[in-house]
């Protein structure tokens, strides 16, 4: 039988109090290194590999310099790295859905749970951003992996010429946004269960639909596009931070009144 493994016996008591518990909660989110670090990195590198093959095929096939320039122009709109942000949304949601009931079972206050979770999300955002910033730097240095490809220096992240710290901050804000949005939706579930989800997604649909209808009817899509161009990546990050902070506050208020159900 593959039963008791004595080497993995629990470590001796760690004295935890106050801030210690917040850090402990943050660590709780990172217990599964594989899920938090290895898997997203591996998938990202896999996507990169697939893209490199595609770029190579394109470069081989397109010989006319004008067409090639055209292709490079188009590649700056690549969405190949978006998966990692969806992953962050899922991690944010799971962080609440799975860790919250466990944390309360470990006699943690809801306040400490939320602060610890925020700490974990900030830390994860920083690590992910640093990783992608390095990849972006390599991408620039190698002129798109030797093939003019673009995955981490696309337009939404400041384009080709952005300095590394600007890229890092853009990535960081984007990740934090995703973690918080994912987790705040999960807190709605913790607070109001299925009914909360139904109401939330119905309301979200109506708001989006209303916005689209208003813009379409007033024929102002051009203005919306202009606003995005005018605001630029930096401005969009600033706006995303508004949502991020709002999510942090709303999540705190909701989790404070939540009880995990069996």
């Amino acid at each position, binding site marked *: 039988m593959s039963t008791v*493994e004595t080497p993995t016996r629990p470590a001796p*008591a*760690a004295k935890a109090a106050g801030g210690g518990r917040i850090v*402990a909660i943050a*660590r*709780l989110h990172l*217990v*599964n290194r594989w899920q938090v670090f290895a898997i997203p990195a591996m998938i990202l590198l896999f996507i990169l590999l697939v893209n490199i093959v595609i770029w190579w095929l394109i470069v081989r096939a397109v010989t006319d310099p004008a067409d090639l320039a055209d292709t490079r122009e188009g590649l700056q709109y690549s969405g190949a790295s978006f998966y990692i942000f969806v992953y962050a949304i899922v991690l944010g949601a799971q962080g609440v859905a799975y860790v919250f*009931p466990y944390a309360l079972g470990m*006699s943690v206050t809801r306040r400490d749970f939320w602060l610890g979770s925020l700490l974990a999300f900030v830390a994860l955002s920083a690590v992910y951003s640093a990783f992608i910033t390095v990849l972006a730097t390599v991408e620039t240095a190698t002129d798109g992996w030797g093939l003019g490809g673009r995955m981490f220096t696309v337009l939404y992240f400041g384009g080709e010429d952005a300095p590394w710290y600007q890229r890092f901050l853009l990535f960081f804000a984007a990740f934090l946004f995703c973690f918080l949005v994912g987790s705040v939706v999960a807190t709605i579930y913790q607070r109001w269960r299925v009914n909360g989800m139904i109401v939330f997604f119905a309301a979200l649909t109506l708001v989006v639909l209303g916005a689209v209808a208003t813009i379409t009817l007033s024929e102002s899509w051009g203005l919306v596009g202009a606003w995005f161009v005018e605001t630029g990546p930096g401005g969009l990050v600033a706006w995303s931070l508004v949502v991020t902070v709002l999510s942090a506050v709303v999540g705190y208020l909701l989790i404070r009144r939540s009880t995990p159900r069996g």
Partner: protein
Amino acid sequence: MTAVIEAEGLTKHYRSVRAVDEVSLRIEENTITGLLGRNGAGKTTLMQLLTGQEFATRGSIRVFGESPVESAGVLQRLSFIKESQKYPDDFKPKHVFATAPWFFPNWDGELAGRLIDDFRLPLNRRIKKLSRGQLSAVGVIVGLAARAPITFFDEPYLGLDAVARQIFYDRLLEDYAEHPRTVVLSTHLIDEVANLLEHVIVIDQGRILLDDEAEALRGSATTVVGTRTAVDSFVGGREVLHRDVLGGLASVTVGRLDPAERREAAELGLELAPVSLQQLVVQKTGAAAEPTGIEQTA
């Protein structure tokens, strides 16, 4: 003695359901209390209230003198092992025993290791794949090794076999003797834990039916068995807790009997039998509505 847990007029409503209804209680420091009652009696809700996991509709709770809700100071001296505890999706028991010490300052890793061996718990299997009994073992080990000054066990033995349950009772008593603490244990297996308990609280439909020292409850009721006429004449106007009649024979449970009454019963040819804690609880919570009749109460 000092009370470490006090509740006053504690009430919890879920829509129309009164899960906990005007409960007032005191639990003394360093005692083992049994919280007994039927399914849905309100045991779990009461424990969730006392541990700050659920919010009271009304009433007050004092644990170590303050409300447990969102109080880090109270909560870190408390552990609540519940049958329905959820674990992160990908957790294995080894993750639980690696992370629990971060939260319980008195955690004893050696004790945890011993219990892991005792329960033959596989450390490297996903929690999702554990059997019900193994899942219960995870909770029991955390509850014992955490050595929290107040430990709540809510139906901790679900799915545990008789050997494992005995291990739990033995280890609980051993460790309790060396490291006195306050234990509140909710359970269905009343006979099994009867000898463990120093204090008993019986709850039914959200209300406290009984709240007494276990010692006082032992012998607080007696079953009188004999012919129907003899039993009826002996019982007379006493309060009857329970009554079974089968043909010409009757078995009636009454309150405490003094020595003179016992002699009288013997002279009438009646048999006297002590009522176990389990029977007492069954009669208090099950048969209350049927003072007469021939049906046996399970």
